[in-house]
């Protein structure tokens, strides 16, 4: 089948959207860009294809119903668990390869044991992390494994009397290698099959037989997906191994993507990892005006990343924590690098963590408001896209401020909006061939 793919190579995450001839979105993929860009593009494409396999699988089953929804959910979850375990095993193996470094000579054995212990415990937790209904702290292996490692590692290091700094160092070295491996199709197929078996075991009174499901998945996996046209966009677009005509500016892609999702959109705000853009589009999705931060990444998504690192929690946890605030601490500096210091400062002054977090979120949104006002204000309808749109504390502030300053405008915030740029890209890809 023909497929059209848009890849948005962002500064922190890389997203892909895969659509078919009828512009139906079959799959989406996301990965961490914090590694090799080519790899990130490959991985996210692979992820989008996985998503597409899910869609195709469902089509193959040709049936609707709660049980099928369940099955697919479980399949997804189990597939992620499979992935996680595979990567964890890889990480464990990779890290043992680094123990020969002369720096660790005197501690090699103890270090190896301690690391094994940490990975073993993380492995145990994996089932919980991917348990039904569990809140996942991040979508990325690096983040989840990293934060678990920090938490468990210090304790283990103490017990085993090895230096935690050393353990951390081995981890840091290994994670890059692990991240840079692209799962091949056969691995993915194997993981999917394994996940299917686990999933079927878990869903009660499924009205498809295991065999039928298996056949359907097989078929879905066998469908040839031809990369008919690919469009790349985003911060890293110049690094994509694509010819020039396959590359679009992220401004155009975000404008078009938002238009495709919400045809009535006139103003788009995108807060990404290191840039914040305010875009005005006309009724056809054409960009009329835009503003973005230049040179300074203050108040962008990475800001939250630094805060999360500083507090040693997952990105997904920040929003919910900030929602528990009773007041909003006033934060003036949104320099990303100083974020940690600002947080510490405020904590030292005796302010509550939740209140500070609420203040930090407000600061980000205020900065976005200023970019929006420079881009010509907020018009009806207003669409908020980018990774930060997933953060409820940020969206709450945004809704409030938009309402206060621009009155009643329809505000579109979609959990999937991180894919807006990629969607715009895929739409461009489709147009390039089909128009």
């Amino acid at each position, binding site marked *: 089948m023909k497929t059209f793919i848009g890849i948005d190579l962002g500064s922190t995450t890389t997203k892909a959207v895969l659509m078919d001839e009828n512009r139906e979105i079959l799959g989406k993929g996301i990965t961490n860009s914090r590694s090799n860009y080519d790899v990130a593009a490959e991985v996210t494409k692979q992820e989008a294809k996985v998503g597409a396999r899910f869609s195709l699988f469902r089509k193959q089953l040709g049936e609707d119903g709660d049980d099928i929804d369940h099955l697919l959910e479980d399949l997804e979850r189990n597939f992620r668990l499979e992935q996680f375990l595979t990567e964890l095993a890889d990480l464990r193996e990779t890290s043992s390869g680094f123990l020969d470094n002369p720096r660790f000579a005197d501690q090699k054995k103890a270090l190896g044991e301690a690391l094994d212990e940490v990975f073993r415990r993380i492995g145990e937790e994996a089932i919980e992390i991917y348990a039904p209904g569990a809140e996942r702290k991040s979508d990325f292996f690096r983040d989840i494994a990293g934060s678990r490692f920090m938490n468990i590692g210090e304790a283990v290091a103490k017990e085993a009397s090895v230096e935690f700094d050393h353990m951390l160092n081995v981890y840091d070295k290994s994670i890059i290698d692990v991240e840079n491996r692209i799962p091949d199709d056969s691995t993915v197929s194997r993981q999917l099959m394994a996940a299917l078996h686990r999933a079927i075991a878990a869903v009660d009174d499924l009205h498809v037989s295991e065999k039928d499901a298996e056949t359907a998945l097989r078929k879905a996996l066998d469908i040839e997906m031809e990369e008919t046209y690919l469009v790349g966009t985003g911060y890293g677009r110049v690094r994509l191994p694509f010819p020039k005509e396959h590359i679009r500016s992220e401004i155009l892609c975000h404008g078009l993507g938002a238009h495709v999702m919400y045809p009535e959109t006139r103003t788009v705000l995108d807060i990404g990892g290191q840039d914040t853009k305010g875009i005005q589009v006309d009724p*056809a999705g054409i960009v009329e005006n835009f503003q973005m931060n230049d040179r300074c990444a203050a108040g962008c998504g990475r800001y939250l990343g630094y805060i999360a690192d500083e507090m040693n929690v997952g990105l997904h946890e920040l929003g919910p924590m900030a929602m528990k605030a009773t007041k909003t601490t006033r934060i003036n500096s949104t320099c990303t690098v100083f974020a940690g210091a600002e947080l510490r400062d405020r904590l030292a002054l005796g302010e509550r963590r939740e209140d500070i977090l609420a203040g930090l979120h407000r600061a980000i949104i205020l900065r976005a408001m200023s970019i929006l006002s420079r881009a010509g204000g907020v018009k009806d309808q207003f669409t908020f896209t980018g990774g930060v749109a997933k953060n409820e504390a940020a969206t709450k502030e945004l809704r409030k401020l938009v309402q206060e300053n621009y009155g009643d405008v329809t505000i579109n915030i979609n959990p999937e909006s991180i894919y807006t740029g990629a969607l715009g890209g895929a739409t461009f890809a489709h147009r390039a061939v089909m128009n």
Partner: protein
Amino acid sequence: MSAEAKSEVIKEPSMLKQKEMIANNYDKLTSAHELGIKTASTFVPGNLNELIMCFDMANNLPEINAIQNGMRKKSGGMIMDAERSGHSEDVCTYVKADIGMMSKGNIAPNGKPMPAPDVLLLSYTGCFTFMKWFELLREEYKCPTTMLHVPYEADGKITPNMRDYVVKQLKEEVIPTLEQASGVKFDIDRLREYLRNSAKAEDDLVWVLESAKNKPSPVDCYFGGVYYIGPIFTAFRGTEDAIEYYQLLRKEVEERIAAGKGPITPEGEMKEEKYRLVVEGPPNWTSFRDFWKMFYDEGAVVVSSSYTKVGGVYDYDGFRHDPDNPLESLADYCLGCYTNRNLPTRVDMLARYIEEYEADGLLINSIKSCNSFSAGQLMMMREVEERTGKPAAFIETDLVDPRYFSAANVKNRLESYFQMVDQKRKGGGSAAAA
């Protein structure tokens, strides 16, 4: 305003003439001491070139030096030098380039050192920074400094009080100081003669600028425009040379119109005219060529710009230097310079240019250095958009500080803008944005 930047490719007689004029002027300046000529430093907006000529003095314009250094990519280092010596990174880079140039020996483009000025003629017109700039230069040169304070046209008109104030300063402050510095007695008939010359050249200049109303426009009134305004804005207004230059130029433009040709660019004739723009704000000098290329590569011609009015507005309300009212007309000239006009007037001017030149829209090049131009431009942009219904775009660069020219950013913005204009023209119909 520089001769060299576009010399190589196609040399029309007017270009050669201008090159020669500028070279001669620098030679005159750098050998002023040997020739026994006194020099005056002064600014472009509100410059009193005819008056300076009355005292047989040569005219040195620090802004032009900064531009020259910007185009030769020397300004970056000079600015850093000035910042190191205690000047803030926040202030106008012309000032810092000038101060940095002094610390590097004050070398003129012809390779010889500039003489220290014999007098600083501070025409405080349209920009606050001028005042501080000359206070700073005075610290350096310790030479006589005379200030001509030109009040701001805050309500869009020249009041008698303003005019009297300026004329009185000319009579009681400026002229006596120049007499003393030069040892030459002021002769008002000489001034009248020069003003008559000015008016002649000004007629031709306006004709050239307005030729952009043709389609295709035979000239580019921003990138090309900075060359066209060179003589009249600098050391040549009032001279025979200037008259001749503008006659040559006019003839060339007449020929281009007859041949249906577009403007000349550094890479030859411009091909197809796709977009007609009005531009507000000075250009960036450190990447002047690259900046220009982003326009002509896309088929964009600037049909009118406000920058070509900084040293005098001759088209909008038809001002000409007037030999019959010499001092009053100098006062009106100073009062009427573009940045000395209030924002509503600037908006009106730009909106009228868009209409009269049938432009597709307005582009603002906002300059970090220059509050005089930049403070308020965002509001101006919206007002002009509203009045004309034409789209506007906003880019941010700097004059001579290479650190503030981000080519990728500017290009990104221009490309989107051109696409937008395209779409508007098509009536926003099809959605093929790529």
